[in-house]
């Protein structure tokens, strides 16, 4: 498409302010790009009217000299954020047709900052999945293809796969994501974009359909580090409507971006060198170490001894919370209701939940119900909470020695749709590098760092201290500048 849709968030903002184009032109260009990219199935609904209305307001604001931080910027919104007057589904049949009367705090902040909404982005159902294959609205397809000529449709990662796919395809300049165990970082890595999960509590969870409350955290996905910083700044902030929200001010991350890492220490956790990791990922990791050293950082080997328990811990805690969080979808007040003839209340629950939830959601509800049940609670849930505390302590100890940690984001590049969906455990293994930071609640981001032998993007992950998103962004910027990642998927979808 036009040059407009090639622009990232900062470029659009600055170009709009400079008068290079109107906000309306921007909105129309992206609306058109969205329409052209239907084969990606990145959106559950498109909301061009919202984008246009915000653009018109931005143009008026520019004329009046009253620009807001995101005036003129249209965004993609993951369909886990409740949007007043616009269907919100969590990619589940359970919520098909559900139109909230209320706005999530994060989207309210974005809209109050002048942004518009291009549409609600597809995701794994209730954010449970690593490939977008669990969506009730069909899987999102990555714009990337292997260079083997096979044209196998690839997974955009998950759960924020609509967000990652849409940004990589340049049909949205940036998008919101949510990350429970890697749902921003892994799809970012799979599609060659940047994505940051801030410290747990930075972004309000109010109005975000809950998956696992103690882990869910909204974050920013964008073309690059600067755009991620701009978007995250607009999403963050204390919210009295979320008891777990952090009452701290939001730093000026964009303004303080610096790739000069002199005086900084970067930890390399040895436990992240896992069996069967592709050599090219290991090589990229070594390359990342070299880049950060080049940026002035001192490299330190560190140990996070409980890393190997992170994945099983996560897959106890997250389903446990989910099994309870999803109990409200019962067919009584909203969403799907399946009421067979002569059914009593129990029958209605069973029929509604059988029809409304997909297989992966059911699997996690069952796992969660099991680990919380009498007789198993201590062996699973209590133990998992103890291990979680140990994992958090690992990070605390490491951050006494270093400022940030560098790891690969995912153990592989994007896989083909259907390749891993038969074996849930294999799918869960995709989260092995992202889950520990989620359990510890610390900020982490993925930046695109290179391509594998098949021409697919690979990401590196930077993990930081609690509330030190700046340190994470700065290290990400240092990598980004040295990686010079410019690869783009070929446009095969717009015919």
């Amino acid at each position, binding site marked *: 498409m036009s040059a407009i849709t090639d622009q990232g968030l900062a470029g659009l903002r600055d170009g709009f302010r400079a008068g290079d184009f109107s906000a309306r032109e921007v909105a129309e260009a992206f609306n058109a790009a969205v329409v052209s990219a239907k084969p990606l199935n990145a959106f559950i609904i498109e909301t061009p009217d919202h984008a246009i209305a915000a653009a018109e307001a931005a143009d008026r604001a520019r004329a009046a000299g009253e620009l807001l931080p995101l005036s003129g910027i249209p965004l993609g919104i993951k369909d886990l954020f409740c949007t007043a007057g616009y269907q919100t589904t969590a990619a589940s049949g359970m919520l098909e047709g559900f139109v909230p009367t*209320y706005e999530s705090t994060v989207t309210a902040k974005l809209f109050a900052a002048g942004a518009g909404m291009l549409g609600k982005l597809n995701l794994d159902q209730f954010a449970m999945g690593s490939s977008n294959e669990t969506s009730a609205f069909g899987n999102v397809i990555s714009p990337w293809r292997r260079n083997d000529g096979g044209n196998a449709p690839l997974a955009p990662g998950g759960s924020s796969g609509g967000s990652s796919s849409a940004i990589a395809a340049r049909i949205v300049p940036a998008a919101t994501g949510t990350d429970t165990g890697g749902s921003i970082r892994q799809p970012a890595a799979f599609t060659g974009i940047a994505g940051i999960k801030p410290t747990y509590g930075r972004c309000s969870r109010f109005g975000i359909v809950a998956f696992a*409350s103690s882990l869910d955290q909204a974050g920013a996905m964008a073309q690059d580090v600067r755009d991620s910083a701009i978007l995250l700044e607009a999403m963050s902030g204390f919210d009295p*409507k979320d*008891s777990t929200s952090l009452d701290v001010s939001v730093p000026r991350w964009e303004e303080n971006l610096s790739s000069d890492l002199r005086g900084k220490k970067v930890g390399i956790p040895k436990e992240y060198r896992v069996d069967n990791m592709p050599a090219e990922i290991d090589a990229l990791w070594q390359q990342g170490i070299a880049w950060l050293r080049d940026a002035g950082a001192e490299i330190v080997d560190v140990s996070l001894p409980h890393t190997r328990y992170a994945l099983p811990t996560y897959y106890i805690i997250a389903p446990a919370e989910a099994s309870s969080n999803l109990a409200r979808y*019962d067919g009584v007040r909203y969403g799907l209701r399946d009421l067979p003839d002569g059914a009593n*209340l129990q029958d209605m629950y069973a029929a509604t939940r059988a029809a409304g939830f997909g297989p992966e959601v059911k699997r996690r509800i069952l796992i969660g119900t099991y680990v*919380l*049940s009498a007789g198993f609670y201590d062996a699973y849930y209590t133990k998992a909470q103890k291990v979680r505390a140990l994992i958090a302590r690992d990070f605390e100890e490491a951050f006494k020695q270093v400022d940030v940690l560098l790891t690969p984001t995912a153990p592989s590049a994007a896989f083909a749709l259907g390749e891993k969906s038969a074996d849930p455990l294999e799918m869960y293994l995709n989260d092995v590098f992202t889950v520990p930071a989620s359990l510890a609640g610390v900020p982490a981001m993925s930046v695109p760092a290179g391509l594998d032998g098949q021409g697919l993007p690979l990401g590196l992950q930077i993990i930081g201290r609690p509330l030190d998103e700046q340190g994470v962004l700065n290290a990400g910027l240092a990598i980004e500048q040295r990686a010079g990642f410019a690869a783009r998927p070929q446009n095969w979808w717009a015919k």
Partner: protein
Amino acid sequence: MSSYRIQGATGEWEVVIGLEVHAQVVSNAKLFSGASAVFGAEPNQNVSLIDAAMPGMLPVPNEECIRQAVKTGMAIGAQINRWSRFDRKNYFYADLPQGYQISQLYHPLVGEGTITIDADEKAGIKEAKTIGVERIHVEQDAGKLMHDQHPTRSYVDLNRSGVALMEIVSRPDMRSPAEAGAYLRKLRSILRYVGSCDGNMEEGSMRADVNVSVRKVGEPFGTRTETKNVNSVRFVMAAIETEANRQVDVLESGGKIVQETRLYDPDRNETRSMRSKEDAHDYRYFPDPDLLPLELSDAFIERCRAELPELPDAKRARYEGELGLSAYNAAVITSDVETARWFEALLDATGKTGPEVGKQASNWLISDLFGALNRLGKSIGESPVTPKQGAELLGLVADGTLSGTLSKQVFEIMLETGDDPTKIVEERGLKQTSDTGAIEKVIADVMAANADKVAEYRSGKDKLFGFFVGQTMKAMGGKANPGVVNDLLKKALG
């Protein structure tokens, strides 16, 4: 020791009782939402997005509800836990929108405390007894299902969904229905003093789950049953009695008590099984991840303590000591916070303190005012006479303006008209007279008209003195000061 026993075919059985009382917290808003917690609104008028468990909604604790529970804990001398936590109790029901109740299983807000019940010979409670309270935790109430609105459908009213409850769990320390009744009444009295629960069992703002078991004296505890949601003191006592007798019958006929949940049917005065332990829910309790642990600051705890009013036991001791009230009067007046407040307002309005006015005021309140209110079917809060008016009346008696008889007459007029006693006395000329000249004149007339009786009296028939008093008072329209009449009559009759 309670002497309450059930006489079975195999001997005497002792009853062991524990109560779990759910008390609705007095607060403007619900426990985790800003919706109104006021009783009596149209269905689903007091429901926020949080109470309806809409997607993405989050609970935020209401400090006022926590304050009320902490003060209640302090009022029963309980340990206040500076660190407590909310847990989710998971089960599906149409009146439970979240699919879980937010409660406190593992770390309650309030720990061990005690409630003392008084000796009550008539009820078989020989001496005052201390009942242990294991814990108080706060939790959400559920909504309510309405089955009578439609022939085939049930409707859901979520007004109560999310309203704050305190669950006050006693130790199994009670041994008779009377002790359980006394415990409930005392607890209700304390809650009303603190202002943390209105104690209205009819409106459902206080209900009890009754745990009952029986055993032969000296044996270990038997298996207990839990009778749910009993909603009056009388029903709690009746439920215990009937359930304990049922258990004795079962055991004596060779059966076993099943640990189960039961329901009390007041119409038939029987308990019925709801569900047994085998098909009991597995509630899958776990810490609510939407909420941080509840940590109380020293300042918060101090503020709660400072807000705590004088409690019934302390008040009663003060009334008996400083104010010289009889044990009976002190107990009656302090048992209900409204009565105690009325009494104190009455005392304040007299401008006096000490045993003299204390006795006078308490006697008047209990005999005259209570008598009148009883007759009128009114509570003390609805009294047609204000404490200030009552004090004025007591003052008129104390300064000799009104005799006892006159004061009762004036009080009746006050009840009817609502007028101040001074006004009534003036307008109707009901003032007592001590004018010796006027009285002497009347006495002279009475003696002249009854010369024969004067002679009889003087010849030793002392009993006739009352006759002269009566005649004199009658002639003076009841307004003569009886003391002055007595003195002057004695002098005149010689």
